[in-house]
């Protein structure tokens, strides 16, 4: 156990295993972060006193100038002594549910598309989380991956992840080789993430690409359950028709029996059909929703190329960026 002193004299305690981000969030400190994997660069800090172990000194989130100025990434550093650091905690990052580590057991696997399956894990004690958040999953072999929850915390089923099979990816292959009837135990650490659904009077747009489907489905499920007057427009994109959900499948998945959600699918590599528009999903969304986007909250999840393109386009047309919610993953 080491003490981590923040500017102004506040401190939190970090054990020998947690990174600084994990240690801070477990104790309710709003340490700036997003990806938890060294890519986004949001958790930069300066070490003023003491010693840390840097798990990934060449992480993509650090520039040469950052290194020159002595900055490190808090999601890649563990304290080796009591330390004093320079960083500005921000209420935006204060966790509503503090992340915790626990064991979990695989209880079900369901096929969604030709390469996406829904895996449900039951933790020892129920995990509280908000729609749109993610958890770190540690497999029996020790690999760690971040996956977003697709279900709702209060449905008591455990946590459900939608996992896309990556060709040649040994982690997803290990998952796809699992069977729910064997006693497969994993470790779960969560919840994390700031792209969770917010209370607001505005209507909602969800944009999902590939395995970014899970957090958007969670938000859609919460919307159906809440039965609010707000409208929700849901866009889901893939390359081919086999990658997407048909309308009936989508409605069954989110429990939308009366069709309150406006669902549009998009395919980028095949021509349009009665099931899907042709184009990249963010472009299809922009074409369909027209110019009045500032009246919406927009949630998105998917490949970096998609989220970056959507973010740039929205910024260029003057969209109020505080109404765009997504976590950067790399």
């Amino acid at each position, binding site marked *: 156990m080491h003490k981590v002193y923040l500017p102004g004299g506040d401190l939190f305690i970090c054990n020998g295993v947690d990174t600084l981000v994990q240690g801070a969030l477990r104790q309710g400190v709003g340490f*700036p972060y*997003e990806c938890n994997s060294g*890519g*986004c*660069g*949001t958790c*930069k800090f300066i070490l003023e006193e003491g010693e840390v172990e840097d798990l990934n000194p060449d992480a*993509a*989130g*650090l*520039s040469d*100038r*950052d290194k020159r100025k002595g*900055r490190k990434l808090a999601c890649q550093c563990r304290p080796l002594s009591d330390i004093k650091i320079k960083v*500005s905690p921000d209420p935006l990052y204060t966790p509503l549910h503090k992340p915790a580590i626990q064991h979990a057991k695989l209880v079900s696997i369901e096929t969604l598309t030709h390469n996406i399956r829904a895996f449900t894990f039951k933790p020892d004690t129920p995990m509280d989380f908000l729609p749109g958040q993610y958890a770190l999953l540690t497999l029996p072999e020790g690999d760690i991956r971040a996956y977003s929850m697709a279900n709702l915390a209060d449905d008591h089923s455990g946590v459900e992840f939608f996992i896309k099979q990556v060709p040649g990816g040994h982690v997803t292959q290990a998952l796809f080789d699992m069977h729910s009837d064997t006693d497969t135990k994993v470790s779960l650490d969560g919840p994390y993430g700031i792209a969770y659904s917010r209370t607001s009077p505005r209507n909602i747009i969800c944009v999902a690409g590939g395995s970014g489907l899970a957090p958007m489905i969670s938000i859609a499920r919460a919307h159906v359950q809440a039965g609010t007057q707000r409208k929700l427009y849901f866009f889901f994109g893939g390359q081919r028709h086999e990658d997407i959900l048909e309308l009936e499948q989508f409605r069954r998945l989110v429990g939308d029996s009366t069709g309150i959600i406006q669902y549009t699918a998009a395919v980028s590599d095949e021509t349009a059909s009665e099931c899907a528009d042709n184009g990249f999903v963010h472009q299809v969304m922009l074409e369909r929703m027209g110019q009045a986007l500032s009246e919406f909250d927009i949630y998105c999840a998917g490949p970096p190329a998609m989220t*970056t393109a959507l*973010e*740039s386009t929205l*910024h260029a047309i003057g969209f109020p*960026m*505080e109404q765009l919610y997504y976590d*950067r993953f790399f």
Partner: protein
Amino acid sequence: MTHTAANENYILLCDITEPKEESGLLIPFNDRANVAVFKYEGQFYVMDDKCSHGDASLCEGEIDGDEVECPFHAGAFSFVTGEPTAAPCTIPMKVYRTKVIEDQLYMVNDDA
């Protein structure tokens, strides 16, 4: 002070003696986004002041050559091109052409 700009798309920012090399100069507006004026190797550069990553004023950031660092999460931009140069910033900033007329610095509002 006389405004001698012949072109209505020129917006008066400041006297050319006001911007310093070591920090950005904030020019607030009521009717449009605030801008930051930077001076580098004797040239003036104008960019929107609010960081494209979060609600931070880039005028309060540290200058490093032709780049400015955001004071929130230490991302950075080139104030010459507006391109992001360090994570977590990913969206280019809007930059403006400048014009000096009788020792007054103007930005060119190409949107007008």
